[in-house]
């Protein structure tokens, strides 16, 4: 299996006023990476106009682009239309499902979606009490179940989970503890640990930390742009630790 170079970034929060500025940093990406993953919050408040800026910024790149949406991309209640704009620009958009890419003979499986919150083991919400709390927790449970199924069904040499919300609290360090339950859920990590994955990338936590891992030992990377401070991160994988 040849090595795979996975570029990733999230939380680019594009709008008309910064049109073209991010694109400048994508020149030459094919020399650094084989694929680009976008970890949600691509817009500021999820309007179609902002969605079009995102589509234009990431269209026609020399490497395949796979994206998930984030909570900001849902704010105007147009997530399906934003996803359609991105797909029209050749960007693959995951919604709790998977895509398998053939990269020079290596099959890269990318599984994921927006994810959601609820908190982390021992300090999390449960399906108890008012219907609003039950609905909140149930939303995450259903997402985690769909990821588990998608991972089970995805045959690939390398499997990456792409999320907006965080699966672990390691990568939240720097954020106020009080908001952890709104930043992610351990149920997402549990699904990946149950079925196996080589890497999980997420965004959402702007003040968090880049590196963490799941209880099962899967590497987790918070690629929110304010955390990275650079246009994108590149993670190199070849199965035996040599790149």
């Amino acid at each position, binding site marked *: 299996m040849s090595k795979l170079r996975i*570029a990733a970034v999230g939380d680019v929060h594009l709008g008309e006023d910064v049109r073209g500025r991010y694109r400048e*940093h994508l020149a030459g990406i094919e020399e*650094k990476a084989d694929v680009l993953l976008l970890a949600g919050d691509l817009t500021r*408040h999820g309007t179609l106009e902002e969605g079009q800026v995102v589509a234009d910024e990431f269209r026609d790149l020399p490497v395949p682009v796979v994206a998930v949406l984030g909570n900001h991309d849902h704010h105007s209640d147009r997530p399906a239309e934003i996803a359609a704009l991105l797909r029209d620009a050749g960007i693959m958009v995951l919604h709790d499902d998977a895509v398998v890419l053939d990269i020079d003979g290596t099959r890269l499986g990318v599984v994921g979606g927006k994810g959601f919150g609820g908190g982390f083991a021992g300090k999390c919400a449960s399906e108890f009490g008012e219907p609003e709390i039950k609905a909140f927790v149930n939303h995450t449970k259903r997402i985690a179940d769909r990821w588990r199924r998608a991972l089970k069904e995805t045959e690939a040499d390398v499997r990456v989970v792409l999320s907006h919300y965080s699966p672990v609290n390691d990568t939240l360090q720097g954020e106020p503890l009080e908001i952890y339950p709104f930043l992610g859920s351990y149920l997402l990590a549990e699904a990946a640990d149950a079925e196996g994955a080589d890497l999980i990338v997420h965004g959402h936590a702007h003040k968090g930390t880049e590196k963490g891992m799941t209880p099962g030992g899967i*590497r987790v990377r918070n690629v929110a*742009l304010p955390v990275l*401070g*650079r246009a*994108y991160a590149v*993670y190199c994988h070849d199965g035996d630790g040599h790149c």
Partner: protein
Amino acid sequence: MEAPQYVAARVQQALAEDERTTELGIRVDVRGEQLFLRGEVTSEERRDLIAGVAEEAAPGLAVRNELTVADIREPGGEEKL
């Protein structure tokens, strides 16, 4: 007189919910007659816009705009997993 904590919370909520800003990560502190804004934004235009929305939400306070504009660096070396 309204407690400064409530004023700061109102401004923070306005910055998150106002369609012009929708910024969730801005730190807002009120000290006496001054309102401090801290955090990172993506452009000069947004820096000014956020200060304007904060001023509307807390009229009478002097806004100290300490927001910085994030600089996107070029991608560095790869991490070997």
